[in-house]
Each structure stands twice: as structure tokens, then as C-alpha cells.
């Protein structure tokens, strides 16, 4: 089926995954992973990713995942060892733990660069592999230097750091020989962060006001220094802190996530073909909340259904505006791709997702 999109035309992604079907794959592979003491989990992961990739289609063709389970198993063993060492160091002595944290931070950008390479080299569409050409140096700038600057400026430059990370990921990606472009500037990130800050301040003010009111009401008719007055005070603080977390996670989390996804993908293009995303915060909120309730009520068995629901929503709210035919993409120098792909496969897949 050879599509020809003469004039510009927005084409959406389709997702055909189904909860019940994926549940069976998930649970059978989970049981096998348990029976093999975790070794099978690498094969399970490949199968799960293949389910999502192959059930995602664009313009009549599906995506595919080619990760080698053995490479993933190696990466997982290394990752678990690293985390155990880090945990043990932290438990032994705070100073040692801090040292381990510093080491982890130092190797983190390198790990991210490796895992991005692995992920993209092992993804394909219409028989062409994606690719990632970001350098290790670039990863250190994006994932270490900019966040550090962000912290040193007390978060003032955090939006810039966020933009640099996304720019590193998207500008260095390609499909076949065609590179992705990323045009979302710092301004958009500053806008989202400013709004988030404003909402956080409003939230704190509102909660303090309600908390003080409740605390005052609860301590009515109680003597100063009474245990009951103290209890009222503690209750008020608890209410404020708990309320802050609940509102922040349930409402601001999905809002932030939706805005960033839209900003990033509306600023991404593959050659002349612009991407677009129109995820809505209230929809994400509804999905997060119902997924959370489902997972809690079923003691985790709802997880595969939850994953499918979220993936469907995210995929079906993305589109690419095609300018001309899809047929014109070609592989990068075939040799280079496969060699690089194998090299990456030999190293780690740390499955660091953003």
C-alpha cells in the first residue's frame, strides 16, 4: 500500500492494543520471569515492547522493536548491581552514600546516551531503523551541566535545562537518514514553569488559609498549651502537607506532563514533516486517577490495562503533517547503521524513560 500525500495532510497515529490481550502476555511473562528468578524478564520486556510498537501504526504501517533480550539482560544485571551497591553504600555511612551518589551522577549521562542509542537503533518503521547520533559530551552538557546550573540558580534556569535535554534527545534522533528537527525554544518552557509556579503558590496560600481556619475552629474553647490545641496544630499542618501532595500529584502532575508533551512534539519535525500533539490535562488526569484506583483495587492486576489506556490516549493524540510521500525516506549508509546498532546492543539498555 503506497500512500501518496500530495498536499500537506495531518495523519494521526493509531493504537490497536487491547487490555485483555496484553494482560495475558504480561501475566504469562511475569510468571515465567518469577519462575526463572528474573532471567526471563529480559525476554518479557522485549515481548511487551513489541506488543506496543507493533500495535502502533501510522499511515497504514506499524512500528517494530528489535532489542536483543541478551543485551537487555546484561544491562539489567549491571543496573541491579549498581543500585544494590548504591543502596548498601547509603546504608553503611552517609558520607559513603554521598560519594556513591556523586559517582552515579557522573556516569548517569553516559548511561542515558547509551540507552537512547540502544532504544532508537532498535526501533523501526517501514523497514527503516531509527537512530541516535548524540555524543557523550552532549549528554554531559544536557543531563549534568544544565541541571546543575538549574539548581545553582535556585531553579531559575531549570526551564532552560529542560529545553536543552529535550533538544539533545530530539535533534540527535533520525529516521533512516533523515534527522529530526527541534524548534521549541526556552520561551515555551519558561511559560509552562511560570504557570506551574503560580499554581503552586496559589495552592499553598489556599491550603494555609483553609488549614489555619480549621485549626482555629478545632482549637475553639481550648486553653492555651493544652494537648488538644497541639493536636489541632498538628492536624492543621498534616492537612496542609497532605493536601499539597495530593493536589500537586493529581492535578498539577498531569497538567505539567500534558503541556510539556504538547510543547515538545509541536516543536519537533522529521525533515519537512511536522509533528503535533494535543494531549489535554483533564483527560490525562482522568486516566491517571482511574488507573491508580484500578491498580490499588486489583492489587496490581490492572497494571497492563492501565498501560494500554495511557498508551492509547498518548498515541492517538499525536499526528504528523505529511508533506509529500513517505516513500522517499531511505536508510542511512546501511553498514554504518547496523554496525552502530550492534555496538550499542553489546552495551547497555538501562531502560531510562522520560
Amino acid at each position, binding site marked *: 500500500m503506497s500512500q501518496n500525500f500530495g498536499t500537506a495532510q495531518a495523519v494521526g497515529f493509531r493504537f490497536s492494543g487491547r487490555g485483555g490481550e496484553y494482560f495475558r502476555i504480561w501475566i*504469562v511473562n511475569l510468571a515465567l520471569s518469577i519462575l526463572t528468578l528474573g532471567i526471563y524478564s529480559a525476554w518479557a520486556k522485549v515481548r511487551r515492547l513489541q506488543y506496543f510498537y*507493533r500495535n502502533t501504526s501510522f499511515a497504514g504501517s506499524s512500528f517494530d522493536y528489535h532489542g536483543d533480550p541478551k543485551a537487555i539482560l546484561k544491562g539489567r544485571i549491571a543496573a541491579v548491581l549498581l543500585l544494590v551497591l548504591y543502596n548498601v553504600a547509603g546504608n553503611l555511612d552517609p558520607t559513603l552514600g554521598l560519594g556513591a551518589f556523586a559517582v552515579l551522577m557522573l556516569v548517569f549521562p553516559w548511561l542515558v546516551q547509551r540507552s537512547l542509542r540502544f532504544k532508537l537503533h532498535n526501533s523501526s518503521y517501514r523497514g527503516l531503523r531509527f537512530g541516535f547520533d548524540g555524543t557523550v559530551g552532549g549528554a554531559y552538557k544536557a543531563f549534568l551541566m544544565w541541571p546543575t546550573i538549574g539548581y545553582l540558580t535556585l531553579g531559575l534556569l531549570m526551564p532552560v535545562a529542560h529545553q536543552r535535554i529535550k533538544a539533545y534527545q530530539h535533534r540527535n534522533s533520525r529516521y533512516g537518514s533523515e534527522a529530526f528537527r527541534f524548534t521549541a525554544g526556552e520561551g515555551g518552557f519558561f511559560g509552562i514553569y511560570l504557570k506551574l509556579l503560580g499554581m503552586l503558590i496559589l495552592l499553598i496560600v489556599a491550603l494555609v488559609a483553609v488549614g489555619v481556619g480549621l485549626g482555629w475552629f478545632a482549637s475553639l474553647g481550648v486553653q492555651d498549651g493544652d494537648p488538644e490545641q497541639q493536636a489541632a496544630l498538628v492536624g492543621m499542618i498534616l492537612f496542609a502537607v497532605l493536601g499539597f501532595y495530593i493536589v500537586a500529584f493529581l492535578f498539577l502532575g498531569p497538567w505539567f506532563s500534558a503541556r510539556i508533551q504538547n510543547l515538545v512534539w509541536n516543536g519537533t519535525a522529521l525533515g519537512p514533516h511536522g509533528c503535533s500533539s494535543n494531549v489535554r490535562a483533564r483527560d490525562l488526569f482522568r486516566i491517571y486517577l482511574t488507573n491508580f484506583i484500578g491498580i490499588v483495587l486489583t492489587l496490581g492486576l490492572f497494571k497492563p490495562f492501565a498501560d494500554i489506556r495511557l498508551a492509547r490516549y498518548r498515541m492517538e493524540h499525536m499526528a504528523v503533517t505529511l508533506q509529500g510521500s513517505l516513500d522517499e*525516506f531511505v536508510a542511512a549508509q546501511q553498514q554504518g547503521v547496523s554496525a552502530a546498532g550492534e555496538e550499542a546492543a553489546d552495551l547497555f539498555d538501562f531502560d531510562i524513560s522520560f
Partner: protein
Amino acid sequence: MPMVSADYYDGKSARAHSVRLSLSADALLVQGDGIDRREPLHTLHVSEPMGAAPRLIKFADGAHCEVRDHAALAALLEAGGHRDGWVVRLQSRWGWALAAVIIAVAGGAAGYRWGLPAVSEWIAFKLPDKALAQMGQSTLAFLDEGVLSPSSLPAARQHSLSNAFEKLAVPDGMGAGHEIVFRNGRAIGANAFALPDGTIVVTDQLVSLARHDEEIIAVLAHELGHLSRRHSLRMLIQGSIVGFVAAWYLGDVSNVAAGLPTVMLQARYSRDHEREADEYAAAMLKANGISPSRLADMLEKLEQAHASKKSGEDGEQTDVFGGYLASHPATSERIKALERD
């Protein structure tokens, strides 16, 4: 002869070719839209069925066919003698999925009940002494800053208690390396606990609660039992593992909930550990001509002391530090066991 329509991609460009697939002896024929290939069946890789997702037939040179007509392809695969892997067959049936739920739950429970303690014990006895010393010192320093204050017992009294304990023979011949320190327990009241490096902390309140020195000795023997089995260390390791697994599983859901299993786990295991430490103490006391009922007497007093405190003014719990200072839920059971000895 079944005929299947498919999209063919050569792996070099994104161009789709509309082709027809058919079988010819031991080979697959791919024809149409300028493509004419004949590939021996054994060189092909057919992807697993995954619901509505297309199935992919991959060629050795990187080309592949994307097939969406599942019924026609199934007939062709059947004619070609292709058989899905056993995992695929398990995945396709709800019965097997149910069996997998049971295996996953049973496996998880077994791992939690037997695997986790075994792994933690193994790690606990592999950790170098230097690491234990470090851990014990930083814990004691932390406790000294907030919860404990210096002991008001006279130095001579401290020495005589320590010396009386050091003179005793230990059941396993060598005993764990240890050091006894005295502190004012303040809010935690009458208590004794062992840190991973062999430090046994005894509170002034426990010393004054005892009516006989042998009762204090009995508690020290109990703590030495914890030390020789490295209980506190094992609990720490178990807690870390459970926290890690829970965080990994819940992942994006919630990090707050990840802490809960750790708390539950520590309550569950401390009972087993208390019983082991009681057995150790009973053996040690008997070997030195002291009645194990001294420990039972002391346990009773400790329970009464903590119970009266609990029902008292602010209802604050005594086991604020979970692992180390966990309260002992089945005390009456333990007292009975000790008196049988």
C-alpha cells in the same frame, strides 16, 4: 493454495510494495509491484501473533513483509508447517493466564517468605566487619543526637554489669564480638537493642526496672542472640530489597506506597528473630547456671512498663525505630516458652 496480500519493505527505503505471498514447495513466493522473491522457509522469521498488530515475516537480508490479513496468513503458515512457540500458546488462553496469576502470586509469596530471608541472611554474613562498624557507629551517633542522652548510672555499676556478662560462657563457643554501652533512654524508656557492629545499648530505665542483676544479664544474652544471628542487619537488608522491588513495581504510581511493605515486613520478621534470640539466651543462661525464667520475668516487666506507658498520657508508641526497637507482640507466648526450658 492460500494467497495472502501483504506490504513488502526492502529495508533500504520506506517505500511499501503491495505483494502477494504464496507457498511453493519449501519456499515462500513474494510477488507483485516489481518484487519477485523466492525464499526458502527455513531462512524466514515469522513474528508472534499479537492481537490486531500485523505479523511480520522477516528475511535474512533485512527486508520484511507486513501482513494484516490474519486469517489468510494463518492458513498459509499452517500449510507451510509453521508452529507458534509454547509461550505464544500460553499467552493466547485465559486458562493459562489464570494459572500464571496463581504462579505469580504463589511465587511472589514464596520469594517473600523464604527467598528474601535467605538472600538477606547470605548478604548479612558476607558484609565485611569494617562496613558493620561504620553502620553501627553512624546509627549510635544518630540516636545520641536525638533520642538518647548520657547514662546517669555510676561508672562502677556499669562496669560490674558488663564484667558479670563478659564472664559468662557463650553457647557457640566464641560469641559475636560486642560492646555494652549504657544510655538514658528518655522517651523510649526501658529497652535494650543491638546495633549491627556489636554494640548493645542498655537504657538506665531497664537497669532500674530489673529486680535482680541476672534479669539484666538475661536481656543482654537475648541481645547477643540477635547479634550472633545478625538480625538487625538482615532486617535492614530485607527492608532495602522490599523497598526496591516495590518502588520498581509501583514505579510511576506512587513512591509513598512503596514504604508500606517495609514496615509490614519488619513487624512480621521481628517475631521469628525474637524467638531465635530467646532460644540463644536460654541456652546461654542455662550453660552458666542461670534460670531462663529470669528472661521471662524481665519480659513481663518490660511489657507491663510499656503497656502502662501506652495507656498513659499521650499514647505515644514505644517502637518509633521499627527495626531496632520493635515491640514484641507475642510476649506471653515467649514467656511460656522460656519457662518450659
